[in-house]
């Protein structure tokens, strides 16, 4: 049971990193960039080839390149590959594409990449995938449970770092600018903001985060291939974000817990499901679909909606003391203003 809880914790951290990546692009910026699954795969393959070592002569699995770099290099290189991928996809697609078109082109790039991998087995193992990925820090302990704890700690620390990163991003003037780009791209340009730069930045950061998630996933499972690298992964991640609350990192964490842990891991406990995994799988998809539609319909801002901007001392503000400091006309007193607002309240 403890082992099961630890496994669930590890998956929660790995999935949360992915959903935070989606949130930075879809939630905060409203970009229909579905490429986060692409970067998940890039990170997983990168972590694999940078830890697996050269291709053995008599092995069944084939790959074009492999080195055995020590921890944490495979993870760092995976993040860098994801960021470069994000940069390239961003440069290609963001310059002109928006909305549905962006969604379609990012899906198309994902499909092209997985088809390439599948079609050239010598490149990255083809449809068989790659196994025997070296686990980070595995030399520290030989016990299964001990290593589970180490991986829990590793993924937890990295997830926390990503969470803090996202908190700082969103609750800074940069995050506010990103939100404004989502709200009205044309209006933002007339305030001296270059929307392309903000979008590209979010794509690069999101690419790195998704790649980190993929790297951890591959290293935990010790195998990776095109089967888990499917566009269907978009749905649970999007559902987690929308149920939890897009644009709110705490909401995203809650949503990830609900979709991936409660629904994804809890279903097998239902009577009848444990003996029939296909049934569990079907029920899971139905729940994701229904929850997604229900939330978009009844509560589009999610369980924990995006927060309003708040500042520390939002104090008694006395305008009269300030009017001399400015070249603007003298301000009416607050009392005047209250009276006036009353007079205007009917004007719609």
């Amino acid at each position: 049971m403890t082992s099961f809880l630890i496994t669930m914790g590890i998956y929660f951290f790995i999935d949360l990193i992915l959903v935070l990546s989606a949130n930075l692009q879809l939630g905060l910026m409203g970009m229909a960039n579905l490429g986060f699954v692409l970067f998940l795969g890039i990170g997983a393959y990168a972590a694999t080839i940078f830890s697996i070592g050269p291709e053995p002569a008599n092995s069944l699995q084939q790959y074009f390149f492999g080195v055995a770099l020590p921890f944490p290099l495979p993870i760092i290189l995976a993040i860098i590959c994801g960021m470069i991928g994000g940069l390239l996809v961003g440069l290609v697609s963001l310059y002109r594409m928006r909305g549905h078109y962006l969604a379609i082109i990012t899906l198309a790039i994902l499909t092209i990449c997985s088809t390439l991998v599948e079609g050239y087995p010598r490149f990255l193992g083809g449809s068989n995938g790659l196994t025997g990925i070296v686990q980070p820090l595995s030399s520290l302990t030989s016990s299964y449970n001990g290593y589970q704890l180490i991986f829990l700690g590793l993924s937890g620390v990295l997830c926390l770092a990503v969470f803090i990163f996202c908190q700082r991003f969103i609750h800074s003037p940069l995050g506010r600018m990103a939100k404004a780009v989502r709200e009205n791209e044309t209006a933002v340009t007339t305030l001296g903001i270059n929307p392309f730069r903000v979008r590209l930045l979010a794509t690069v950061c999101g690419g790195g985060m998704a790649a980190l998630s993929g790297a951890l996933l591959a290293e935990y499972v010790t195998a990776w291939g095109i089967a888990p690298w499917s566009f269907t992964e978009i749905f649970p991640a999007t559902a987690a974000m929308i149920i939890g609350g897009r644009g709110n990192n705490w909401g995203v964490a809650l949503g990830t817990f609900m979709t991936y842990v409660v629904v994804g891991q809890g279903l097998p406990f239902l009577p009848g499901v444990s003996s029939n995994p296909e049934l569990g799988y079907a029920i899971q998809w139905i729940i994701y679909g229904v929850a997604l539609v229900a939330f978009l319909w009844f509560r589009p801002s999610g369980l924990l909606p995006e927060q309003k901007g708040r500042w520390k001392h939002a104090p008694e503000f006395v305008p009269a003391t300030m009017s001399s400091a400015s070249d603007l006309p003298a301000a009416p007193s607050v009392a005047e203003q209250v009276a006036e607002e009353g007079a205007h309240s009917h004007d719609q």
Partner: protein
Amino acid sequence: MTSDAILEVEDVSCAFGGVQAVDHASLTIDRGSITGLIGPNGAGKSTMVNIISGHTKGQEGRVVFAGQETTGLAPYQVARRGLIRTFQLSSEFPNMTLLENMLVAPRQVGTKFWNAMFRKSVWNREEYALLEKARHLLVEFGLYKLADEYAGNLSGGQKRLLEIARALMADPTMLVLDEPMAGVSGVLIDRLVDHILELNRSGLTFLVIEHDLEVIDRLCENVYVMAQGSVLAYGPMYELRQNESVLEAYLD
């Protein structure tokens, strides 16, 4: 009367397919003035503003702002030179509070990635100074009580006020207002007119597009008249009212 021009639009043209929206039109706006731009619907006024602000690329002609050519610059580059415009349809950020709307406008060190992530102490001081300024402006525009309300919940007139207040946060040297009174009711119109006059006294140059000729009368010394993409006439309202071709264009 000031005579140096802050904005010169020379002979610009812009066609959308077969529609010649702006047809070899030229404007000169004096520094420190409030200039009007009027004309019937479809005359090309908004297209002219779009060419000035970089939102539409004209096919011919050039635009010079504050002594430097801005033809072909991206809208955000034009804005950074101090020319801020508003839109015919109000363009608030609906799911952000009024204060957040205001704080998007100024250039901030905290919008640089590195500062945002690792140097909160650097951007926070600037943030609070700007917050103070934003609150001050909201008081002046009678919106302070709604400071933490979502901008999408404002009335049409309040959105126009917010948009102008937000533009002021960017410290512009010239404001171009595309039909600022559209959808605004009586009391707020007076208030907007007063604000524009006050701001102009403190040195801001305005180009105002407006249907309501009474508002133009109260605001503008000189007015351009456009029809079918061309500039028909320029002068004070009382002269334009006598002008045959202007009357004709309006009667069409």
